């Protein structure tokens, strides 16, 4: 299939055009880009590769196999939904910057999943970072500016780690090809670290918590779709069956749910939820069996849909009310019923309610855990999936749309937002009802049937009683209240400790410079002054001497010379 364009190119060209067009033309163009891209990538066959010679290397900017193609389809779908969702943007919302950045961002994500070598991967990896930062900055607040900057720096840390790892790898092995990497050697660990940052591994995760809630309502939808999924893809490609991933994934699935319970900002709650979901994927990749990998990528696919849907619904709330905090919201179902329903579809999906798409992929991972013999991880993940119900399944829709009436009366969001959410919701349900749609695309042949009675029933029991616990706690009024506060997380290390360290080091360097200069001056000045006393206009060496003393000097000189010779 040589007639295909590189998938990223469609988006980059689209971005260029979006920068120079306005109004309806641009809207049409924006919608056409993912559609055209999808048609293009649909024509790409497995095994297709585009190679070129560059700087003495043979690069492979496009290499298609089942894994990358799956992510390729997914990203087109995600881009389509998110683009439609953001069609309403106006000039005051930095529409041009947002549209252009979003298309570049989506294109870079496509580039990354089709990249066949480390140089190409690095390029798209960094482009992802740079373009996405604009989606945060575009919100134009002091908070978002700083958060965006922190985000960018962390992302670039990931980028330079990848670069360093790639450099070492090419230096050690002479090959640039991006395939299985594994954890042997420093280069492997560096690449692992790079992907880990983007995948929000525990302690490397806080950029996500910090930055996503600061993005624009529309921008965060893009953000939620691409960066972490590229990381999941890269893990699946480079580190399948790496045991440490199982534990990392378990940790990722568990710790955020505690934070999610007490987080007031609903978009931040979703960000925690996101880490929790990625935890499932990472865990699956760590298990590494065909079933597990299938489950992980299927879950990534589904996560893009339902997490996108949830972010979209919260974005709609934010767009209409300007608020995202649980303590500020409530009772919106009265004026935003459609949004509320769509949000609940998303909540059901993420909670893995049967007939919704979360169920069909998450259960694959759970089964794979047992098949893989991770008997102690399975209950942990089970706990985590129950926890999802708590914060994403109940908390999000409940506090935004029901709960205590905040008194806010608003309208449904713009039609394009509703349309986008509807598309996502339909996809969630469609996959939930007909899992074969998704299974057919997975990298390995699927022989898995989620819908057997035992499975469905246990899942319903788990969910129902988990919700029951919440209900009980609510009724007993010991459920933790929504409080306006921030919760310390790993970002403290760079927002507080790191920032102080950099500031102080900078000042220390500057002061050291000054001190050094003044020390040098302290040494030089007395020397200069001494020399000046002797050599200055009135110093003995520059004065006009009377003839007598000159003659005396001559005599001394002669005496000295003779003495010197005779001694």
């Amino acid at each position: 299939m040589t007639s295909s364009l590189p998938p990223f190119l469609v988006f980059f060209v689209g971005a260029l055009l979006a920068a120079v067009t306005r109004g309806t033309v641009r809207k049409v163009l924006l919608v056409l880009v993912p559609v055209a891209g999808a048609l293009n990538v649909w024509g790409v066959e497995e095994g297709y590769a585009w190679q070129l010679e560059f700087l003495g290397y043979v690069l492979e900017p496009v290499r298609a196999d089942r894994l990358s193609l799956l992510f390729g389809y997914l990203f087109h779908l995600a881009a389509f939904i998110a683009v439609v969702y953001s069609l309403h943007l106006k000039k005051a919302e930095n529409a041009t910057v947002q549209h252009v950045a979003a298309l570049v961002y989506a294109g870079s994500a496509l580039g990354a999943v089709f990249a066949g070598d480390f140089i190409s991967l690095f390029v798209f990896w960094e482009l992802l970072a740079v373009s996405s930062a604009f989606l945060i900055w575009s919100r134009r607040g002091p908070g978002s500016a700083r958060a965006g900057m922190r985000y960018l720096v962390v992302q670039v840390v990931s980028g330079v780690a990848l670069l360093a790892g790639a450099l070492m790898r090419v230096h050690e092995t002479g090959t640039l090809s991006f395939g299985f990497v594994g954890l042997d050697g420093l280069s492997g660990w560096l690449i692992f670290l790079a992907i880990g940052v983007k995948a929000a591994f525990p302690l490397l995760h806080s950029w996500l918590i910090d930055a996503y809630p600061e993005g624009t309502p529309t921008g965060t939808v893009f953000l939620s779709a691409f960066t972490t999924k590229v990381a999941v893809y890269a893990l699946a490609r480079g580190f399948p069956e790496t045991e440490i991933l199982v534990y990392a994934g378990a940790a990722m699935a568990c710790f955020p749910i505690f934070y999610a319970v007490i987080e007031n900002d609903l978009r931040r709650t979703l960000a925690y939820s996101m880490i929790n979901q990625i935890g499932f994927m990472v865990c699956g990749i760590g298990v590494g069996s065909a079933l597990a990998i299938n489950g992980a990528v299927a879950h990534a696919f589904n996560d893009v849909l339902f997490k996108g849907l949830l972010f979209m619904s919260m974005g709609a709330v934010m767009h209409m009310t300007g608020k995202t905090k649980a303590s500020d919201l409530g009772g919106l179902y009265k004026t935003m019923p459609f949004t509320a329903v769509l949000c609940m579809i998303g909540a059901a999906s993420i909670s893995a309610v049967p007939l919704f798409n979360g169920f069909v992929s998450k259960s694959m991972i759970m089964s794979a855990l047992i098949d893989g013999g991770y008997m102690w991880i399975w209950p942990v993940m089970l706990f985590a999936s129950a926890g999802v119900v708590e914060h994403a399944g109940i908390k999000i829709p409940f506090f935004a749309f029901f709960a205590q009436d905040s008194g806010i009366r608003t309208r449904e969001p713009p039609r394009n937002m509703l349309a986008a959410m509807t598309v996502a919701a339909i996809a969630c349900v469609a996959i939930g009802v007909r899992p074969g749609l998704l299974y057919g695309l997975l990298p390995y042949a699927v022989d898995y049937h989620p819908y057997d009675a035992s499975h469905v029933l246990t899942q319903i029991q788990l969910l129902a009683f988990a919700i029951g616990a919440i209900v009980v706690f609510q009724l007993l009024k010991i459920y933790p209240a929504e409080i306006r506060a921030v919760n310390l997380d790993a970002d403290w290390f760079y927002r507080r400790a790191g920032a102080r360290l950099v500031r102080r080091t900078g000042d220390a360097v500057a002061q050291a410079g000054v001190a050094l200069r003044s020390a040098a001056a302290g040494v030089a000045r007395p020397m200069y002054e001494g020399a000046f006393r002797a050599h200055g206009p009135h110093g003995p060496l520059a004065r006009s001497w009377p003839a007598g003393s000159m003659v005396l000097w001559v005599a001394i000189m002669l005496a000295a010379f003779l003495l010197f010779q005779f001694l």
Partner: protein
Amino acid sequence: MNEKRSPDSLQPPEAGRPPAQHGPNSVPPRWSKRILLGFLGLCVAAVVAGFLADIHGEHPWEEVPLFHALYGFLGISGLILVSKALRRLVMRPEDYYDDE
């Protein structure tokens, strides 16, 4: 930013008060009661169905009767309690980072 930009007049009247526990009072009590009852029914149905159907566990713990129901209930209870405790450790005023 948006929070800051919006004038105080848009804040709900409750916002000024110290954070109180939310009551689900945006839904009329009649409806909330019905919903709760419906939910209770679902729980019971799930338990009953669980006994009726042939539940073949993959994990040894699944041999325990009503394992999933218990695990869900206890897990979430624990989750909520631990989170409450976590608050003591990590909660800071909203403007904690504003002096950067």
